[in-house]
């Protein structure tokens, strides 16, 4: 991809000072994502989130109407613009503010590419297999199956990676002490091509080979950023990583391996592979020592992936004779129900609201994000990650904020913001579609649209909950334990989950756990011994995947659970 001189310009990116070639006509946001510079943008360049703020040094483009509406005149005069609203036209210099830590701005600016030999191997070995999962691992690569790593000579650190549609998360664990050394996360750069899995699959379909490669490149670029951050935070070297577990939904795992996901986009939604895959790091494209072993954990169906398997293992589902449920809140809301005899799993299209990615003041769980909101003396009080000034809401903060506003009567049972004339708190501004609730000064607000996004996400998950239980012939009261997991930032307040009806009121007698990101947690734990890792294969074999999309009771439950109330 070498643009010819006539359609290419040079852009200097500050503060790193690197100068990179850009194509005339692409948006500045696309350009930054392509070369691996992370902005705070979360809507994939759709112009919705107003977060991909960059500063044009010279020349400063004319502001668009959205910018005049959302930025101050001082910001505009200084050259602050939204990267997604401007196209590359001429040589320029752009300052991109660090979003959480400066090291994320030092991502490799060169274009990483998969080793060509492996690419051919993968496509030939995996694409179009459409096989039923065999429930046992197979390995990829020309060399023999990598042996079980011996921490004393091939690295003393384990790495767990959770490849989400919206976010990429990683965890480094010291193999000997099982201590977590560091956690890190970044946005999945593939969001440039759509917020959900289906939109990205459609993109791949337009040009299967080239676009699979592009999506593979983007996800590895994001993984590289997570690894750099993990290394910095842990104060350890990636060269000591001897064993890696990768989990994620099936589409993401296909793209991590560079395998086309198009079969997942149409009925009967068959993955090209679902079994566990073992390979050597040098064949994975991960920038770690070449002899490290990588296990890509098994999935269950085209919709339910290794992330849920890791979660099931992490919360020790399937070990009691009584019914238990795991809910993993993400862009796909995944559910695993252990009836006491069998394991039923499903996935619902929640959208990115639980990760706060489609929310006006949403942000990742980094410094400045409100992660908890509770009522204290009738007033909402906030906890902010890093303890500084609040800048936005991460997923747990969003759920909490909506529950608290609902409790205060600022939001009605169907999600409507109280009319400004009836509001005595002075927090409601505007009306109709433009209504919003001021949480912190003018910096953190909750818009009517934000509430709608959460309603749709919550409705989908709760409808999945009800439908799955009905299928198993169980009642909510039969559940002994409910684990509610997800990378929401902090753990949501259980009382709030009942308040907005994400969990049924009858479940209050059940034991409620909020174990956090169980995908990473479980993946790391599965690497502790070969026997534990085989548990993942067992779980994948035992699970029955259910497709709720075809279930008529699901749609009704979905509508019913749009409402934000205890029910």
């Amino acid at each position: 991809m070498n643009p010819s001189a006539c359609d290419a310009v040079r852009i200097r990116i500050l503060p790193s000072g690197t100068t990179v070639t850009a194509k005339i006509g692409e948006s500045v946001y696309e350009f930054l994502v392509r070369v691996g510079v992370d902005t705070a943008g979360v809507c994939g360049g759709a112009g919705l989130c107003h977060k991909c703020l960059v500063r044009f040094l010279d020349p400063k483009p004319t502001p668009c109407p959205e910018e005049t509406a959302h930025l101050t005149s001082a910001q505009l005069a200084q050259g602050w613009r939204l990267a997604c609203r401007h196209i590359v036209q001429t040589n320029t210099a752009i300052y991109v503010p660090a979003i959480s830590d400066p090291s994320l701005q030092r991502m490799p600016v060169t274009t990483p590419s998969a080793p060509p030999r492996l690419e051919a191997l993968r496509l030939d070995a995996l694409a179009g297999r459409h096989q039923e999962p065999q429930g046992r691992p197979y390995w990829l690569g020309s060399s023999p199956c990598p042996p079980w790593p011996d921490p004393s000579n091939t690295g003393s650190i384990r790495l767990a990676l959770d490849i989400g549609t919206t976010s990429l998360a990683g965890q480094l664990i010291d193999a000997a002490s099982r201590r977590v050394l560091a956690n890190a996360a970044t946005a999945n750069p593939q969001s440039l091509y759509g917020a959900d899995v289906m939109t990205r699959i459609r993109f791949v379909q337009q040009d299967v080979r080239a676009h699979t490669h592009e999506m593979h490149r983007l996800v590895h670029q994001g993984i590289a950023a997570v690894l750099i951050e993990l290394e910095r935070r842990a104060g350890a070297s990636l060269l000591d990583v001897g064993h890696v577990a990768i989990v994620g939904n099936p589409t993401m795992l296909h793209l991590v391996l560079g395998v086309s996901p198009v079969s997942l986009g149409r009925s009967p939604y068959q993955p090209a592979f679902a079994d566990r895959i073992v390979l050597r790091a040098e064949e994975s494209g991960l920038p770690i020592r070449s002899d490290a072993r990588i296990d890509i954990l098994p999935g269950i169906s085209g919709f339910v992936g290794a992330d849920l398997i890791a979660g099931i293992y992490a919360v020790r589902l399937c070990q009691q004779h009584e019914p238990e449920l795991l809910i993993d809140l993400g862009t796909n809301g995944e559910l695993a129900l252990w009836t006491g005899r069998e394991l039923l799993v499903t996935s619902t299209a929640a959208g990115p609201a639980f990760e706060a990615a489609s929310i006006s003041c949403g942000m990742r769980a980094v410094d400045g994000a409100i992660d908890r909101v509770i009522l204290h003396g009738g007033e909402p009080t906030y906890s902010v990650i890093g303890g500084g000034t609040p800048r936005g809401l991460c997923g747990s903060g969003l759920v909490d904020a909506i529950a608290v506003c609902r409790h205060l009567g600022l939001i009605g049972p169907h999600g409507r913001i109280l009319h400004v004339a009836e509001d005595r708190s002075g927090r409601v501004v505007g009306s109709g579609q433009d209504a919003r609730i001021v949480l912190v000064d003018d910096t953190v607000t909750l818009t009517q649209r934000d509430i709608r996004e959460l309603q749709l996400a919550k409705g989908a998950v709760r409808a999945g909950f009800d439908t799955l239980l009905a299928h198993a012939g169980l009642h909510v009261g039969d559940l002994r334990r409910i684990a509610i997991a997800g990378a929401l930032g902090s753990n949501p307040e259980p009382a709030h989950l009942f308040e907005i009806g994400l969990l049924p009121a009858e479940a209050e007698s059940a034991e409620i756990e909020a174990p956090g990101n169980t995908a990473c947690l479980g993946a790391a734990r599965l690497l502790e011994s070969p026997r534990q890792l085989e548990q993942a294969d067992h779980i994948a074999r035992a699970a029955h995947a259910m497709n709720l999309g075809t279930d008529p009771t699901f749609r009704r439950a979905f509508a019913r659970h749009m409402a934000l109330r205890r029910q």
Partner: protein
Amino acid sequence: MNDTKRERLAGIQQAVLAGDMDGIQDLVTAALAAGLEPDTILSEALTPAMAIVGDDYEKGERFVPEMLISAETMKMALEILHPLLKEDGIAPVGVVVIGTVEGDLHDIGKDLVAMMLEGAGFRVENLGVDVSPAAFVEAVRTHRPNFVAMSALLTTTMVNMQAIIEALCEAGLRDDIRVIVGGAPLSQEFADRIGADGFAADAASAARLAKTLIGA
């Protein structure tokens, strides 16, 4: 009609507007027991309620989640009324075959259109999502509809609408039906280009469009 009957109709209308999914079926059953005709309940309680829902949506006073709750509530009422209407020989305003086009799995918008059409008195055959041209043709042969309504939410799948219209032409069915299309990336201009008879920007206007086209 006496005042009690009027009150019952108003109560049903209110239940749909408020999305009272727990109470609606009891209200309808009670109204029938009190001697109200099924088609009166449809045309004087459910249809006006859904018209209000549609208007509120267009004015920005109601949103998709609220619309879904009301539409599903109305559907619960129709579950009781439909068999009775059939028994009474009450013909629907028209028949619509609806589906999301091949390659596209979005169903919320399409289901809302289907429910708004039902609320307006149409009989709706909902083919679901990812519907092939052949399946549309087959459904038109079976149900003999007045309308074929197609939804697409992606720029990559909206082009499949043209293939469906062509398949209907080839099957010699195109002249018997009107094709209406909708979905976020579509426009009137796109609808004209592919030879559709109508375009609706949202669920509320889709119901109005169908009524206008059929002259109801």
